[in-house]
């Protein structure tokens, strides 16, 4: 999930400061409106689906990002596509974006909205990579730890990586907790290499005659 967000964000210039400020402002506005009507979670689900759809189709992407059609034409088209099919708020929001010529930010806003909603609801994406698939009890255990430590509700994304041998790697945002056998062995190797070099050098120094 995190990775997908990142690719999306890079593609659309999330790291361009001007766009980012616009994205943040529109996202907050959409979320506040949704929250006032108690529909923030419902819109989040729709946003997730829409974001995937926009990412998957070149043609849809082109429609949102290109400027081949006029504002009115696009407005009509958006009405046909969205009205009655998605939440009314979201449908209105698309029209607002169109009127302000900011439709090209729509994909980014959808992604940002999910993050924003998660942060407000105290949810957090957690990547769990392990050498074997985890049982529901184990996951519940991890959930308990994360709730205790971060005070947030984790949403798990599981990955299998047999090269870890045992243990698991848990990632929350930037922080990574690594308890895999692979990294333990790596650390031990490094430690022994350093120790070994030091011993050999010390041995060499012992035999060296002062010049």
């Amino acid at each position, binding site marked *: 999930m995190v990775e997908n967000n990142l690719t999306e964000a890079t593609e659309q210039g999330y790291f361009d400061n001007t766009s980012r400020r616009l994205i943040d402002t529109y996202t907050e506005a959409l979320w506040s409106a949704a929250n006032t009507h108690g529909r923030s979670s419902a819109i989040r689900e729709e946003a997730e689906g829409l974001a995937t759809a926009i990412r998957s189709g070149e043609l849809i992407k082109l429609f949102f990002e290109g400027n081949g059609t006029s504002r009115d034409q696009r407005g009509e088209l958006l009405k046909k596509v969205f009205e009655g099919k998605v939440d009314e708020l979201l449908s209105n929001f698309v029209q607002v974006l169109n009127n302000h010529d900011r439709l090209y930010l729509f994909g980014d806003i959808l992604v940002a909205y999910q993050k924003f909603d998660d942060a407000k609801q105290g949810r957090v994406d957690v990547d769990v990579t392990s050498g074997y698939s985890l049982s529901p009890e184990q996951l519940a255990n991890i959930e308990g730890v994360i709730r205790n430590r971060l005070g947030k509700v984790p949403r798990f994304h599981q990955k299998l990586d047999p090269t870890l041998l045992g243990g698991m790697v848990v990632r929350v945002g930037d922080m990574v907790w690594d308890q895999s056998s692979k990294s333990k062995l790596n650390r031990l190797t490094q430690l022994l290499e350093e120790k070994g070099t030091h011993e050999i050098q*010390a*041995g060499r120094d012992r035999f060296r005659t002062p010049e």
Partner: protein
Amino acid sequence: MKFKPDEIVSVLQSEVEKYRDRLEARETGKVLEVGDGIARVHGLSNVMAGEMVEFTRTKVIGLAFNLEETSVGVIILGNYLELTEGDEVVATGRLLQVPVGDAMIGRVVDPLGNPMDGKGPIITSESRFVEAPAPGIAARQPVEEPLQTGIKAIDAMIPIGRGQRELIIGDRKTGKTTIAIDTILNQKGGDVVCVYVAIGQKESTVAKLIEILRANGAMDYTIVVIASSATAAPLQYLAPYAGCAIAEGFMHKGQHTLCVYDDLSKQAAAYRQLSLLMRRPPGREAYPGDIFYAHSRLLERSVKMAERWVIVPTGADDSKIVDDSGATNAAEQTRGQGEAAKVYVGPLEKEHAHKHVLPKFPGHKLARVVASGGSLTALPIIETLEGEVSAYIPTNVISITDGQIYLQGSLFNAGLRPAVDVGISVSRVGSKAQTGAMKSVAGSLRLDLAAFRELEAFAQLGTELDKATQGQLDRGYRVVEVLKQGANVPMSFVDQVAIIFAATKGMLDSVPRNQVQAWETQFLRYFKEQTPEVRNGILKEKKLTPDLTKGLEKAIKDFALQFRP
């Protein structure tokens, strides 16, 4: 050489047994884009400015340089060509350090302290931060002790003190590096540890320099830090700070050090490249706004540390004196149990202790705390274009340093080497950093030379000159001749004093101009072999007493009879 495999195995075995596992928590980010020695990283939200980061896949080290709202600009200290978008970056929580200590002496290293000379790993447990704040004023004392360069023109007219920052500035191929290298060579047998930092130079040039240092036995007390022009800009930018940190390691142990930065113009260019790539706003000549600070914070680290003195029993071992060895307390009485020792800081307090306190303690002496009184002398080098000293970087560094040695291409081509332009070269520490003997013979040398230059220009008009003026001119020609000196032949201060004495006192007037150099060579041999009592006397006294002056005069006169051109 024999290794005992069992011993090594047993050490490793105990390591394995003692190995305690702990949960590894790390802060990570991902590479967004990479190129030209820099990377932009998403994540690492708690990274500090200047913190080391590691690219986990290739184990390359980077430095957090720019902290932005959504990303971190990292300068890559190593091979950046193998990095790719999406690579994981881990914050290490540490600042950049270099190894320091005696194990570094005689080694050639890169700016991260990795050996480049193929002589195996450098095993030392000490290290220092590459970026460190300069010592404050309380820790310093005035620069007064001379650092002999072994070059007549400089030691006589532009003396350099220990802890001073003297800029060497000039066009390409005017002998800037030669002056720095000669100064290093002249420290042979002395107490100065030298660090030569080569920034953005051709590796062939550096190899040649190292060869000169080796051939003259200078690598026994020298460390070379290399960031050649093939190295990425981040390392070229860091090299002088690393060299400075290595020298500081010795300085804080009470040793004297000399650090040559060759040259800071190239470092400035490397820093400009980094800053532009990081999109920092360009200023004059496209250098970033903090280019002045980049140089001033480096050169501020050159310092003469204050000497700390304590009163100890006469029999105490001088090599083991620490602050706590003192026998007196704050009230300058015998120190009781639980009281802190009185430490006399700097020359004034030392004098006070010597005059007023020491007499109250018979059987005691004043001793210097071993780790105090070290110094770091800096010789930054700046290359100018077409003699243009009013360009941005030269004016900056001129204003930071305590004087400059200005080298002229025209003098160099006229055969006047070292091509020091005496008129505009200065040392702001002045004659304080000169031995008494040199002060007495070279006191008026600068003014005399300036007067000679004026006369010389006048004489070129072809006017007939009166006898006195002609005499002054002849004297001037001989002084100029005496100040010439070959590359890599530094001269001890006694020999310099004798030669300059002869020239300024008019004792060379009878020697034809083109034979002055031959006279010098022969006289120095005579001086050393036939009149060792005078030579050793000056060496010991460091000043010209009336007796020594007479002895020197006699030696020169006696030699005149046996001079064979």
